[in-house]
């Protein structure tokens, strides 16, 4: 009997404590972010709209037409058109189509991509009036240089620096590419070739140094700090990228 009473009193006490705790919560700052007014700061691993990145330093397209994403896609929403370049004997990208109406944003394609070209961006506002408008072609999929830089920094993936550094395949392809006229990315490439080259190089040096530092620190301090360093490093770039994004939205 006394056991019963003590249990009842104990249970009531616990319920009361729970009620008080929940009641106290009503005075906390709400964690709601009212979306259209405040765009949520999504983590880098967020799986939003798919996009194709370019090399943030040189601006060249990262896709090597290996078709691994097309093969792994469970929804078969990726369609790649490519041909074998007569000069280099390498596959060359002609068109890249993703049907975002079919896509379920599983992120498998981004995992298999050997060059980290296809990525999930943080963009989730992609409603359209027709289903056809959800099929994105290469032009709509390819990110600008700034955006690529932003996402490479945000997702903390290694930069595709080795690519231009690699002696055999890549420079050759880069050299061969201006010749091939069937590129919708063409607009990006002359830019990469001419004036931002010096800038890119400067940024490159800075970045390598910063990255080495950050890598050391990451081991010592942990992820938080690394993120901070990354942020400070790519602050200017990401600001530009965001501006670009805003402009794009305005265009829409």
């Amino acid at each position, binding site marked *: 009997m006394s056991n019963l009473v003590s249990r*009842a009193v104990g249970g009531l006490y616990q*319920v009361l*404590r*729970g*009620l008080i*705790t*929940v*009641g106290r*919560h*009503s*005075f*906390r*700052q*709400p*964690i*709601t972010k*009212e979306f259209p*007014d*405040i765009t949520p700061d999504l983590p880098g691993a967020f799986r939003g709209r798919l996009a194709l990145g370019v090399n943030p330093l040189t601006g060249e397209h990262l896709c090597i037409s290996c078709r691994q994403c097309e093969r792994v896609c469970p929804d078969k929403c990726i369609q790649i058109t490519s041909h074998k370049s007569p000069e280099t004997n390498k596959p060359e990208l002609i068109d890249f189509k993703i049907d975002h109406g079919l896509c379920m944003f599983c992120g498998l394609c981004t995992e298999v991509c050997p060059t980290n070209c296809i990525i999930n961006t943080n963009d989730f506002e992609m409603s359209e009036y027709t289903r056809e408008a959800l099929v994105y072609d290469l032009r709509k999929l390819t990110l600008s240089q700034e955006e690529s830089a932003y996402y490479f920094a945000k997702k903390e993936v290694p930069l595709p620096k080795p690519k231009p550094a690699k002696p055999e395949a890549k420079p050759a392809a880069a050299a061969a590419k201006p010749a091939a006229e069937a590129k919708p990315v063409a607009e990006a490439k002359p830019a990469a070739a001419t004036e931002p080259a010096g800038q890119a190089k400067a940024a490159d040096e800075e970045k390598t140094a910063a990255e080495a530092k950050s890598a050391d620190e990451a081991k010592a301090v942990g992820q938080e700090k690394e993120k901070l360093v990354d942020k400070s490093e790519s602050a200017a770039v990401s600001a530009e990228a965001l501006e670009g994004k805003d402009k794009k939205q305005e265009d829409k």
Partner: protein
Amino acid sequence: MATTSLAAVPSGTVPSTGSYNWVEVFKFARLTVIWLVAIFGAVWITCWAAGELLPHLIEMKCGGQGPSRYVIEGLQACTPLLAILVFIPVNAMFMVLCERRALALFTVRKGPNRVGADGLLQTAADAVKLLFKEDITPRGADVVMFTLAPIIFFAPSVFAAVPLLAAVTSNHELFSITNLPTGIFYVLAMSSIPVVGIVMGGWASNNKYSLVGGLRSAAQAIAYEIPLVLSIITICFLSGTLDVVAIAKGQSDGFWHWNLLGGGVLLSVHSAPAIAAAIGLALCCLLLFGIYLTGACAEINRIPFDLPEAESELVSGYNTEYSGIKFAIFFLAEFTNLFIVSTIAAVMFLGGGASPIPGLLDATFFGGAAGQITAGAAVILVGILCLSCKPVPNTGLLSSGWFGWLCFGLQLVIVAVIALLLGGGASLVSNGLTGWPFNQLSAGHAQLKWLFQSLVNPVTFAGMFWALLKVYTLVIFAILVRGTLPRFRIDQLMDFGWKRLIPLSLILLLAVTFLRELV
């Protein structure tokens, strides 16, 4: 459980500038005040129009004899029903919004704050949406019973509220017609009917989830109705009557006379054993209140007793197949039931429309100078609450910046003017309308005088005010419980009902009967 979840949230993720967030609490209070004033005003004006104004006009035009007499009496007899019919839908609309906002507060969210100013009209929009949705009857359903179920669920809760009206309006002459000699028993009998609607709807839906929901509801209602009724009957023993008005009247003169504290025994005894008995009685009544709240929670299928409509297990149980207006009726009835069980608790345990401290905002209070000052101050406070808010971004009502501050200032000025006007009016009313402007009125203005005097009735006003305050305190407590406790398991539920609550309430019945004689 809750404490661990608190600890699990890293402090960095909560963007807390200060330690306390008064803005949301303030907005919730503002919303509640606006809605309650609207509901209160609507019901008050309707009752006044049907019960006072129209009969008065008819009497002026046709005289008080003959067929017009029947019309007048019919109108006055219909007033309580009209009051309920106006009150229940509007009130349920507000309660849905109140529940969503309060729950958002308890779970550190913001809740609906987009439709209208600061989400004021959210449920109105929802109601319109539900009315226009297609009304689907599933194939294989028993059409007659499928249609009848929401009606059987909703209608009794309308009728159940009738005798309570007399109790919360301090037995106003228009509402004393609703005062039955077996009042509380009638209310209990009526509020036991809705479970039939649930079982009926569950069976007629031709859906196994609905059926299981209906069966669970029936089992639960039968199990928990016994302690609920026993606790109410014990209080009836204590008061010595089944008449709700008499029960409420017995608890006036301060909160120490509430049945919650033993019905005024605590202060009226002098010998030592009688004091012990009185304390025992008060403890018993507190326990009875707990039993009543538990039973009522189970009776109206609220968390933690929401097994009949467990979303995660039964896809919301008995109303799975309902859509459109029928679903709206189910929804309406659920919140009405919550309101009614809270009203029963307020009348039986918390003194109904009586003021908790004698002299505070009751009928005697409105005569004095303190009454005038308080009325003016209250009007100013309510006005500020209603119209203003510190201009923070994204309130929906105000924007930040100089324009926001300008609006804020303008609002303050408007509120001050309105408050001064209303405060002056209130002080006139509290003088019994015999003061300055009224003693200037000649006989030709008798109509105007009658208009004011019939519109404002301080006794009923005080009763309604306290009743609403008590009822909504209980409603918000129910929402807090919903935000805190997890759902029972079905065998634990049955165990708790049959093996714990029923014996406990029987013991308390005996204890109260004997202790009452000892005091």
